[in-house]
């Protein structure tokens, strides 16, 4: 993710990537694809030098709605947990706001899926 051409292009983060970004990369119980997707999203948002386009609706509506629904469905009622969840949601948005770019040149979402698949293939070939 460090070539000169990639620094000039943007990647559009849709809600699926925002969800992957919130998930775990280490948990052994997760499927390989889930860990790869989470790792890709985390590297993309936090470590890459790509410019990120983050739609307002994804950050302010779709992801918070999905997260809140998940919290309610799992009957998280403990006050300490609820406070932590609320702050996680806030922090999630802070990360994305700090990395977003105003650039309008967009890398389509299909290319993002292709790159995610490449990361997974790389991981498999490393083990071979």
């Amino acid at each position, binding site marked *: 993710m460090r070539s000169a051409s990639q620094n000039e292009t943007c990647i559009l983060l849709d809600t699926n990537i925002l969800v992957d970004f919130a998930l775990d990369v280490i948990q052994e119980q997760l499927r390989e694809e889930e860990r790869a997707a989470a790792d890709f999203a985390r590297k993309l948002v936090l470590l890459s030098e790509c410019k990120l386009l983050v739609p307002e609706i994804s950050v302010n509506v779709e992801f918070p709605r999905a997260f809140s629904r998940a919290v309610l469905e799992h009957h998280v009622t403990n006050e300490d947990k609820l406070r*932590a969840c609320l702050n996680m949601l806030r922090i999630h948005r802070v990360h994305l706001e700090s990395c977003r770019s105003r650039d309008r040149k967009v890398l389509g979402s299909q290319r993002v899926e292709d790159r995610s698949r490449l990361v997974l293939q790389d991981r498999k070939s490393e083990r071979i």
Partner: protein
Amino acid sequence: MKRSAVTALELFNELSGRFEKLEEEVKGSTIKFIEGVWEDFLKELEAAFGDTFELGLEGGNLQETFALLDKLVVQYRGRLEALVEELKRRLSEELLKELESKVKLALEAFEQVLRLLHMLYLHSGDEWFLYLAILLYALYKSRYPNSIYAIAGFGKFLRGELEEAFALAAYAAREGLLRRPPAGKPWENPKEWAKALELSYHYEVGMNVAAELVHEWGIADALREPE
């Protein structure tokens, strides 16, 4: 950074019900602890090298601070090492014991200090815990002689000069950061240096704590399910 033995869930469950009291106690006692370490550092500097360095580190802009530290490292490298290593030990081992006494939990590794601080941040929303965790992360990542820049960062932190504190700490840990620091000197672009440190921290520590809790509470499974 490897996942430490006590999981985030175990830590959270142990602290549940006493978070507010702990947040107040930990913040109060840790500020005093770090102030004590910083004061001792300045006194040692004055005793060893005269008050030029002591005064320079207390005032001055970021570029001046770097110039002073560079001079210290070049001119007094050998004599400085014992002092810097002792301070690093105090800010890791002694701080760990201090926190253990407050939370009434055995913290087996320094990584658990970072996870504890991040958890207090997640619960309280008080960024002070996050800022301290990030500075300690940089200190943990740095090696002598670079550690002295991280220690100087604590001085800036105590005075509320956060961007400068992070720029110093980022410089100290630059060889170990996962996010590449920017080109140029830290005093030319402190915001970007600070950002490199923060993002590396979140990648290695912060996101692991949050994501582990999200997974253990079952929220991760529900997030993945389509509506």
